[in-house]
């Protein structure tokens, strides 16, 4: 089967439209899946308190803290599930959690 | 399967009865025959009784069962006469050949009244004389070919020489001894 745009495969797809063996063609396709919709609590980034220690980055289970030139940026809310681990590890209270999206 | 000669080998694990059956199949194959050579497998154990079989035919062989009514039986180890019913099903028109120092008259009482031809061969003597060691399978192979006439003497020795040259390519010094053993055994029972 030729490489397929898997964004066209949904839970409504008929069997013959699935890829062979459910193979997933193309890299990084989990980006297409917006897990941010699952969030019931949301981290808020207070950049003025942040020392750029980057402790929060490796503990994020969803790679939702983008880093550019050794500096973290605001959250990737498309994928952040709101688990709150980043807020726990931050030594400088630079991340707080709020209820809801 | 009228055109098929069936041979059953009785030996002990490690004596080369299976190899002899395969060598016989090889030689018969080279003379243009259809062949089967197969052992009856159990857990391989040195010294345990083993059985091997040959079918040699002008026609393709399809049957895949053991041989119950052989035309010929080869006994590679005479101690088996006490524990194994070696003449079971053996064709009275056929023959049995036994590796022993005893005479035909001495072994016949151990053959449960088998009425057919009985041959004996002291394969130990042949082997030790020609090879300096005890490998009973080559002398017994020559004996059964001489008795069963499944191929001519010329064909047999030509094919065996070729086969030994291939098999012992890395130790050519044993080829002559093996051929000598075949000749001595063949002529003894001929």
């Amino acid at each position, binding site marked *: *089967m*030729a*490489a397929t745009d898997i964004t066209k495969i949904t*839970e409504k*797809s*008929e*069997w*013959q439209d*699935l890829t*062979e*063996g*459910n*193979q*997933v*063609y*193309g*890299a990084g*396709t989990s980006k297409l899946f917006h897990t941010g919709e699952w969030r019931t609590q949301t981290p808020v980034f207070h950049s003025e308190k942040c020392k750029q220690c980057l402790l929060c980055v490796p503990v994020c289970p969803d790679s939702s803290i983008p880093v550019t030139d050794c500096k973290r940026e605001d959250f990737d809310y498309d994928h952040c599930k709101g688990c709150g681990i980043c807020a726990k590890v931050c030594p400088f209270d630079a991340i707080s959690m709020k209820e809801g999206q | *399967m009228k055109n098929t000669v069936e041979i059953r080998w009785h030996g002990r694990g490690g004596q080369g009865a299976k190899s002899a059956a*395969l060598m016989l*199949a*090889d030689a018969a*194959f080279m003379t243009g025959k*259809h*062949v*089967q*050579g*197969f*052992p009856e*497998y*159990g*857990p391989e154990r040195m010294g345990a009784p083993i059985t091997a079989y040959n079918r040699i035919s002008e026609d*393709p*062989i*399809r*049957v*895949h*069962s*053991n041989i*119950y009514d052989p035309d010929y039986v080869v006994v590679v180890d005479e101690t088996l006469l006490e524990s194994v019913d070696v003449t079971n099903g053996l064709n009275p028109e056929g023959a049995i050949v036994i590796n022993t120092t005893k005479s035909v008259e001495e072994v016949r009482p151990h053959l449960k009244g088998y009425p057919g031809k009985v041959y004996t061969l002291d394969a130990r003597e042949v082997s030790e004389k020609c090879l300096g060691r005890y490998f009973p399978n080559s002398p017994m192979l020559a004996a059964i070919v001489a008795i069963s006439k499944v191929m001519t003497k010329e064909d047999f020795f030509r094919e065996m020489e070729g086969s030994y040259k291939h098999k012992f390519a890395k130790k050519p010094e044993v080829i002559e001894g093996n051929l000598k053993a075949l000749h001595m055994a063949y002529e003894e029972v001929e």
Partner: protein
Amino acid sequence: MAIRERLSGNEAISFAIKQVNPDVMPAFPITPSTEIPQYVANYIANGEMDTEFIPVESEHSSMSATIGASAAGARALTATSSCGMALMWEELYVAASNRLPLALCLVNRALSGPININCDHSDSMGARDTGFIQIYAENNQEVYDNFVQAYRISEHKDVRLPIMICQDGFITSHAVENIELLEDDKVKNFVGEYEPENYLLNADQPMAVGPYAVSNYYMETKMAQNTAMRNAKQVILEVGKEYGEISGRTYGFFEEYQLEDAEYAVVIIGSAAGTTKDAIDALREQGKKVGLLKLRVFRPFPDEEIAKALSHCKAVAILDRCESFRGQGGPLGAEVKSAIYDYAKDVAAFNLVYGLGGRDFTVEEAEEIFNDLEAYDKGEKAFAEYRYVGLRGEGYTVMREKK
């Protein structure tokens, strides 16, 4: 010109492997299949082929590594028997559901226990629902021919399923018999190069293999697999016919021996078919109309074709070299009877079990089965169904009289 040779079944399939020269072979030894990796390793060491041989620590690993190699884009295979295959069980399903066209050279052997190294079909029959194509052989010639055809079937774009090439442990694997081999170039041309469209080592097209499939995808995935298996039927016939053109030996789903006008028939798989043919010849000389259907392809199961080939028979005995503990016979009996129910209801069909754990099956036993079928049909004797052929003592049977 075909090459006249004499080889054991294990030598024959190893020779075919050498001629096909696949990319990767991970394997772990187990009797009676051990000789296959042994011969292949020898060929590699002698420079006669350049397959990457991977010694692994178990059959779980050998099938896993075969799957990995196949997913990476290699033409891969392994070999095993009995408990070795049992240890692969999980991976067999993984190979099939991931649609990997790898080959498994199975040398059929009984499963423990009691521990036993001899032939029966309980290993492959147990794996009949894994999604592998299964092709069986009567002798060394057929196992050679089947392997040469294997990748043409499994790699076909309409199929892409793993394939199991089965032969009877010791009975054919270790018996030296005459065989006709094809020349290397003929085999290479027939099999061709493997060119997968998508594979893990293709840097231009990254991909993932074997994702989790939630309930909303699982059934659709199975239907795709099932469709591929059904497609395999046509491909098996095409490849078998094309193989006939280069070898003179054409293959289909099954061989019919004296079946055309047969009143009584036996359905059987593997080496015992040859023994049954000798029984048929003996009975035909007595004027009895008896025949054989030797099943070659068990997966996909050619149900309609089998039933139609048997539809003119008065009574049929289906012989299983496997116990399925359903209390009334084996898997071949169940499936052939089901086909007869659908397509040939008038045929009386019985199931017998034979040859478990290497128990010999003789010409005389085959003749007795045909005679029993005839006696049943003529109303002379009830047929003892579910009987174990060659069992000491009575055992469980169901006596069925003609109505």
